[in-house]
């Protein structure tokens, strides 16, 4: 367990035991077996240091800064922050001191210097409506900027549900025509870290992986790191046993709710939401929505905003009348069309009628 990272940590007063403890916790959060924590600590501590800290460019698009808030709230002086110290954040509008042309210069300098090697983090969705005019930075639409910056990136991290899946800007009726990063960029590895906001440790976990192995962690079919999004909230929820026993809170103030029973019937989306809230928790491990007595909103899932209502139980239909008027119109039109065809056919048969005479009864 020797290496530049552990040395640099040591210089900052972080002891080996502290680092081991951090890795054990990180492994637990990533749902890895306890033994993996030690392995990770050894691998990360021994990771060869690049001659230069890896460059990271952070582009904000149609977003609320909630993702940045989430990360920075935990930034210092925690261990996640220490991981951040291992990178060079060359462009982050909210955090950087530079502004205007200086900021733009910093961006272009970083892109040029680290061409093909920098990690691009995006938060916020990209509006396509009105040629992208809904969101512009430095006279360029987000779409243009993304395409330009993505070109030289080693990989892209879509931070938060907006960048990963379109998020709230994409919610019905999606006035700006918002889309996700992966809707636009097809030729770069993209790692989605959805959540509204995402859990900070997921971010640092991915960065840790990137720093340790120089590659992205294993991802699921929605481009999310499996370590954090491998299981549902429901799978790791401490209230799960009550679900299995059929004990449900029916209202937010009934006895079931006071006894901490399952919130499924109050609309908890935990069963269909892949995230690590149940293990990692929020606000420095203080609590998380279900522990606070509220069901999961499913914020890390695509289109969670339009999934039929936060307080509607999963067993209730989401929005079955969505296309009903269209269907009714199509059905009526088809019916009327058939009617006309039928009446035409019947009319034709009628006008072709030859009055039967006796002779016509025989073949």
């Amino acid at each position, binding site marked *: 367990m020797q290496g530049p990272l552990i040395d640099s940590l040591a210089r900052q007063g972080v002891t080996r035991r502290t680092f081991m403890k951090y890795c054990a916790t990180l492994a637990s959060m990533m749902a890895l077996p306890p033994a993996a924590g030690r392995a990770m600590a050894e691998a990360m501590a021994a990771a060869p240091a690049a001659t230069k800290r890896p460059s990271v460019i952070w582009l904000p698009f149609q977003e609320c800064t909630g993702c940045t808030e989430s990360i920075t709230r935990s930034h210092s002086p925690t261990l996640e922050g220490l991981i951040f110290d291992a990178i060079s954040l060359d462009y982050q509008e909210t955090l950087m001191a530079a502004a205007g042309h200086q900021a733009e210069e910093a961006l272009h300098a970083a892109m040029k210097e680290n061409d093909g090697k920098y990690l691009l983090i995006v938060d916020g969705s990209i509006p396509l409506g009105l040629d992208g005019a809904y969101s512009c930075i430095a006279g360029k639409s987000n779409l243009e900027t993304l395409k330009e910056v993505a070109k030289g990136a080693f990989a892209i991290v879509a931070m938060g549900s907006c960048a990963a899946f379109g998020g709230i800007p994409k919610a019905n009726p999606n006035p700006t025509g918002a889309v996700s990063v992966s809707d636009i960029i097809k030729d770069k590895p993209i790692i989605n870290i959805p959540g509204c906001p995402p859990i900070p440790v997921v971010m640092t976990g991915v960065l840790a992986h990137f720093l340790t192995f120089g590659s992205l962690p294993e991802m699921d079919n929605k481009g999310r790191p499996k370590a954090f999004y491998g299981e549902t909230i429901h799978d790791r929820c401490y209230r799960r046993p009550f679900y299995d026993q059929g004990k449900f809170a029916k209202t937010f103030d009934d006895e079931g709710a006071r006894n901490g029973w399952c919130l499924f019937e109050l609309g908890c989306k935990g069963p269909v939401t892949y995230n690590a809230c149940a293990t990692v928790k929020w606000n420095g491990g203080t609590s998380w929505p279900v522990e606070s007595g509220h069901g999961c909103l499913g914020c890390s899932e695509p289109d969670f905003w339009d999934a039929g209502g936060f307080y509607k139980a999963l067993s209730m239909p989401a929005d079955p009348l969505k296309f009903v008027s269209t269907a009714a119109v199509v059905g009526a039109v088809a019916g009327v069309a058939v009617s006309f065809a039928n009446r035409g056919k019947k009319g034709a*048969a009628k006008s072709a*009628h*030859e009055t*039967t005479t*006796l002779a016509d*009864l*025989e*073949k």
Partner: protein
Amino acid sequence: MSASLEKGVRVLKEVIDAPIASYFSSCVHCGLCAEACLFYTETGDPKYTPIHKLEPLRRLYEQEYTLLGRLGKLVGLSKPVTDDELEEWKELVYNSCTLCGRCSAVCPVGNDIVYMVRKFREGMSASGHAPEGIIGAVNRTVTIGSPMGVKLPAVKAQMKHVEEDYGLPIPLDAEGAEYMVMLSSMEIINFPEYLAAIAKIMHQAGKTWTLCSTAFEATNAGMQIGNSDLAKLLVMRIVDGAEKLKVKTVISPECGHAYTALRWEGANLIGRPFTFKVQHIIEVLGEFQEQGLLKTEGFETDKLTFHDPCQLARRGGVIKQQRNLMNMVSKNFVEMPDAGYMNWCCGGGGGASAIEEGEELRMEAFKKKKSQLDVVKPDRLVTACANCRIVLEEGLEHYQMDIPVLGLTELIAEHIPDQTSEKGA
């Protein structure tokens, strides 16, 4: 000699309408109609299930008038209707269906199966798949004037007989009479008492009436075979006669299908409402009874029962009158099980009695009537349809049951006091 499948299909396309579409879409194959059909109950053969008798019509409807049916025909899932198939169905549509309407009466989803059989027959006859017996009857009705080949001279001979026997005048072509009386050829040939009865009853009621030389035959074989053009031709004869004589009411004789043809189909066949009223003789008698114009004396004391003709009762809505009339002249009137609205058919209506090759089946089906009669064990059987009467007589003879059959009108007339003395006054 121009009947063809193509023509049949075209005619069917013409007659398929919203009720038929609705009926076929509603059928759940529950098979309850079979339980109501005497051809099924007496043979136990499921092919006589009423709705099954319409199978080719159903397929044609779906293939012609539904999107999915057209698609099914295109990809070969639904086979087109063929001549061979229709020939096979001839027995089901004619021999084993008397249009009695019991199936329509029991269908839980409300399918008027008889309505559909009637329309299906349009296509069957146009495609040359009507039975020879009925074609013959139609031929005779159209060319000679009556299905049994009765001509005016025969009627006149009957009139003469009656006038002589009863001393009552039988008016012919009397313009402005209140009633124009129609006959069925069976009555002319087999049951002359009918004409006499009418004369007595009309005389007692003090009503003016007449026969019509151009329209004395009421039966409509065109409707039985299921050909509206020919049925219209026959109805038109009656309409012309009635309008020529300016009568108020045309009286349909004791014949079920004549009544349906004239009363319910007539105006629709000729495409305009009638200028006169149409009544069944039983309706007229009922009216007279109610108005006190019908006075009888004495009662029959033997056990009598009444066979409701399907077209009069179930399909015609005349149910109470015949019972009141029966009770007027009988002390021992007993109802058969299912009598009235749900009465069982004699087995020979709807043209079936004209089909020679259907006789065996008819006799088999008659077991239903036999079982009804076996419950009551009547001394005599009264009815109000000459066709029923013939079929009942045949059936009773076949099963060696000694029960005479008579017409209700005659029975009533027998109890009308002798009026020859009044005549002189």
